[in-house]
């Protein structure tokens, strides 16, 4: 039998497919060749999304202090303990893989039931750094790009997009544009991906120099743009020559329809909002020079990163991108939620909640899903921080280092067992359908939260997902305009007018990155970036037999280094190397890439817990709460 049309639950592309099932068991997938997102294509993840539904290693029953408990007892236990804590000592960590409906209930539970703004999802601060800068600009959402627009672009400006298998539906458009339609690709990436041979121009600048490069491009096209640094300084910071910058500027200005594509996960450093400002400036210059249109496609990591944000799973956001201090929004939300007030002060974000747990400044956390494990690969640190909690509740499908220290675990229904909607990177609302019965006592996280809420004295009951949708449409009116029956039309794209941002503004001029100095002992600058998919650590993917096998092979610790430099210090391509930093050493495989700047080594440390000790702890920006990923110096030696 064939299910209703559903959407893949992995990345931010949101591919349309059907689930093939027999006697309640998922047996395969059928890609939709009518879907405007994927046009019949599926990546290795999408082709195997039915496999976790066949996997028997699931948490089937609630656990209270490690012992099997009934669902009712578990709900009572959580409510009883939660009652003891003041709102500021409780936090909720949601998930970018959870549906809109579920995320709406998460945000509502935090604010209406617990009365806290300590609600966030892993990875949010990375996205909002750039996305909000974009949405609050004069162009606002009108500058966002859909896949249909992408197919019409004649210049594709890709900045730090990483490897070609990260966002496959974007990859397909890039390759078709270049190979079939003769369009131009300007690729700017320190990482030398499989796109590089296909770029009309490929530049590999020094890391953290994006804002300089973008300003220099604007300046090259429009002499009136201020540039507070000399050409000498720009060359030194970017590692690019004047000719290279001019060539890039020429390429951009030759386009009538220009799309800038970037990965929200890659511009993860503190200067991201400034980079976005510079990108917007550049596109305005191009527009002024006569381009028909210039758009931006921010690639979002998970299937509902955009939706979780819009539903208010953030410490300073109510649903519909309204600020927690917006009086009108607060009043409207209060009336729909049946409360007289909402917490006013901005809450703790994800990183801050983890640090608070470490310092025992927070007593209870409710964690939904497993994204936290891929976003925070230092599992030992995570476990020790969360062990400090007086109450750790996890709503999850799989055992992990965290369920070992959780006081209560609720089994969670997974993709294919839940109904709802999600929003992809274009802002397109996509439907998910439930096909299989949740295993054991598993249920939607929103069910669990509703039951805990009711036990705490705030009656929250929805008989179905559709009921949640009806309520959330009242607070998120643009969602209410979506007609999912016409799922392939532009009517499914969420496009609100701009929003105002009190806290994310990029203040001040472009400034050179503050990087540690290299020395003879440590001649390399080691940068860690998300060039890889995090999927090999994603628990849903790991419960697909094929993906588990494949990802274990595709993702092993490597350090990427310039070929010439690597050879000169005795390394060999594909052979073991030892990397040593002031913090420690680790064994990796060294991989040669011709175009990585010399003096740079790239370590996709984010996904290998065994390399964490080499990098050191990341910091948190005091103002935005965004993580600051460390840059360290290193040396590389051949391991014998």
């Amino acid at each position, binding site marked *: 039998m*064939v299910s*209703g*049309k559903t959407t893949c639950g992995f990345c931010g592309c949101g591919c*349309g497919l*059907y689930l*093939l099932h027999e006697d309640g068991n*998922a*047996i*395969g*997938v*059928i*890609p*939709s*060749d*009518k*879907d405007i997102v994927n*046009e*019949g*294509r*599926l*990546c*290795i993840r999408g*082709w195997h999304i*039915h*496999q976790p539904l*066949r*996997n*028997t290693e699931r948490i*089937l029953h609630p656990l209270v202090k490690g012992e099997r408990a009934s669902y009712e007892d578990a709900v009572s236990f959580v409510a009883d303990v939660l009652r003891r804590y003041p709102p500021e000592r409780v936090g909720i960590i949601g998930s970018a893989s959870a549906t809109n409906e579920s995320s709406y209930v998460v945000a509502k539970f935090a604010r209406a039931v617990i009365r806290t703004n300590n609600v966030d999802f892993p990875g949010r601060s990375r996205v909002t750094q750039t996305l909000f800068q974009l949405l609050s600009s004069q162009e606002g959402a009108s500058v966002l790009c859909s896949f249909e627009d992408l197919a019409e672009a004649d210049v594709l400006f890709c900045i730090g997009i990483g490897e*070609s*298998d990260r966002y*496959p*539906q974007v*990859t*397909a458009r890039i*390759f*078709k544009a270049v*190979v*079939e339609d*003769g369009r131009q690709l300007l690729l700017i990436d320190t990482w030398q991906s*499989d796109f590089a*041979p*296909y770029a009309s121009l490929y530049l590999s600048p020094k890391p953290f120099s994006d804002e300089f490069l973008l300003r220099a491009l604007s300046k090259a096209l429009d002499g009136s743009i201020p540039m507070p640094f000399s050409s000498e300084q720009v060359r030194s910071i970017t590692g690019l020559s004047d000719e290279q910058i001019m060539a890039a500027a020429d390429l951009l200005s030759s386009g009538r329809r220009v799309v800038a594509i970037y990965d929200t996960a890659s511009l993860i450093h503190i200067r991201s909002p400034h980079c976005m400002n510079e990108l917007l400036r550049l596109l305005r210059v191009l527009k002024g020079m006569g381009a028909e249109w210039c758009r931006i496609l921010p690639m979002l990591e998970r299937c509902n990163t955009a939706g979780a944000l819009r539903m208010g799973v953030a410490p300073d956001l109510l649903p519909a991108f309204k600020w927690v201090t917006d009086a009108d929004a607060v009043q409207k939300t209060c009336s729909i939620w049946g409360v007289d007030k909402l917490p006013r002060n901005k809450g703790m974000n994800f990183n801050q909640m983890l640090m608070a747990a470490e310092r025992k400044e927070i007593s209870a956390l409710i964690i939904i899903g497993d994204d936290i494990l891929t976003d925070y690969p230092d599992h030992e640190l995570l476990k020790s921080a969360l062990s400090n909690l007086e109450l750790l509740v996890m709503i999850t499908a799989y055992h992990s280092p965290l369920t070992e220290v959780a006081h209560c675990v609720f089994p969670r229904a997974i993709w294919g067992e839940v109904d709802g909607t999600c929003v992809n990177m274009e802002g397109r609302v996509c439907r998910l359908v439930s096909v299989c019965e949740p295993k054991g006592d598993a249920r939607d996280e929103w069910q669990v939260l509703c039951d805990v809420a009711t036990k705490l004295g705030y009656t929250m009951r929805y008989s179905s997902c559709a009921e949640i949708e009806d309520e959330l449409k009242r607070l998120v009116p643009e969602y209410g305009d979506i007609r999912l029956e016409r*799922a*392939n039309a532009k009517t499914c794209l969420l496009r609100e007018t701009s929003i105002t941002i009190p806290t994310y503004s990029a203040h001040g001029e472009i400034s050179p990155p503050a990087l540690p100095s290299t020395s003879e002992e440590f001649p390399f600058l080691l940068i860690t970036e998300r060039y890889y998919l995090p999927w090999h650590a994603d628990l849903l993917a790991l419960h697909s*037999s*094929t993906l588990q*096998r*494949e990802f*274990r*092979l*595709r993702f092993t610790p490597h350090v990427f280094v310039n070929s010439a430099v690597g050879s000169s210090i005795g390394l060999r391509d594909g052979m073991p190397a030892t990397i040593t930093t002031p913090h420690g050493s680790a064994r990796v495989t060294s991989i040669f890439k011709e175009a990585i700047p010399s003096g740079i080594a790239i370590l996709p440390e984010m996904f290998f817990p065994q390399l964490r000790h080499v990098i050191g702890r990341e910091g948190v920006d005091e103002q935005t709460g965004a993580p600051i990923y460390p840059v360290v110096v290193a040396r590389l030696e051949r391991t014998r």
Partner: protein
Amino acid sequence: MGTVEVGSKLTLSKGRLNDFLRSLDAPLAAPIRLEHGEVHFAVNPPLEQILRDAEYVNSTISPVALLFPQTEVLFNFRLNGKPQLEFPPPPQPLIIFGIRSCDVAAMRYLEMFFSRSFVDTPFFERAKVTTLISIACQRPGKNCFCPCCAGGPFLEDGYDIQLVDFGELFLVEVGSEKGKQLLSGREGFFELASEELVERRNRLYEETLQKFEIASHMGTGVRKLTSRSVSEELWKMMASRCIECGGCAFVCPLCTCFDVVDHKLPSENDGAVCGWRERCWDCCQFAGYSMEAAGVSPRPDKLSRFKRRFYHKLSYFYMEMDGRVGCVGCGRCIQVCFGVVDMPAVVNTLREEKVFGVRLR
């Protein structure tokens, strides 16, 4: 009318089609449209949902998947001392109606492949009881190139029953014992076809050949690959566009790679371990597919795996062994590929020996 024989040419009036289909006492798979219009071969669909010849080209997933599904339970097991195995019940007879010539040719290849060195029982038990009523194509799709691959649009042999749609009636060609068996006892639905109709059929075949948009010079592909005269640079450029999604293998009706996985259920009270063994589609582009014991792989990198796929499909060594080129020209790989490295794109790149400006189709 007399008895039906292999080689008989008959006619079936459209008005009698549904009665004929109802008379078949076996599950019927036929093409229908899913919620958003995708074509899919469903089993026992309501007759009014079955698509007419002019209403579809082909399905996204080949109907060969009815005999070699994406996931298939091989047996259930119970281990408590002596292992007990429970095999699935023998498969029911199946009639696939509306299957196209390319998929019929693929089915014959699969029957050969799955019985060559040893018999793949799960596939073969199904194949033995499956009969194909194919409809020859008169309106090729934009991705079709079966004439380049001995895959159609009309087959001269290798089919069970081949229909050609002439508006008011079908020409019915009986091509095999299975086809004959299916029609025996149902002669009442048919008339003998006139010679004039058979001539019209031959002319229609020639006309259909002119309608194809793609020409894939498979012969050149075979020659260049077999003689190893493809430059490394050309291979590298093509392989760099592949993202190892597996799509080409999963939609190709001649691809046969599979993995075998055991699943265990939580232990029972008596300590018995229960579970099942299943097989699922796999792909030679996946790193783990070729991985051998002790972690060695003969194809550790994407480039070698990419080359391998096309060597298997196009090299003369395989053609001799398999009796045909490893492609029937169904065009599904074009639909699913992210990197423009589907069969015609690769073959034409090999032919023109350049990456940019090549005529891809």
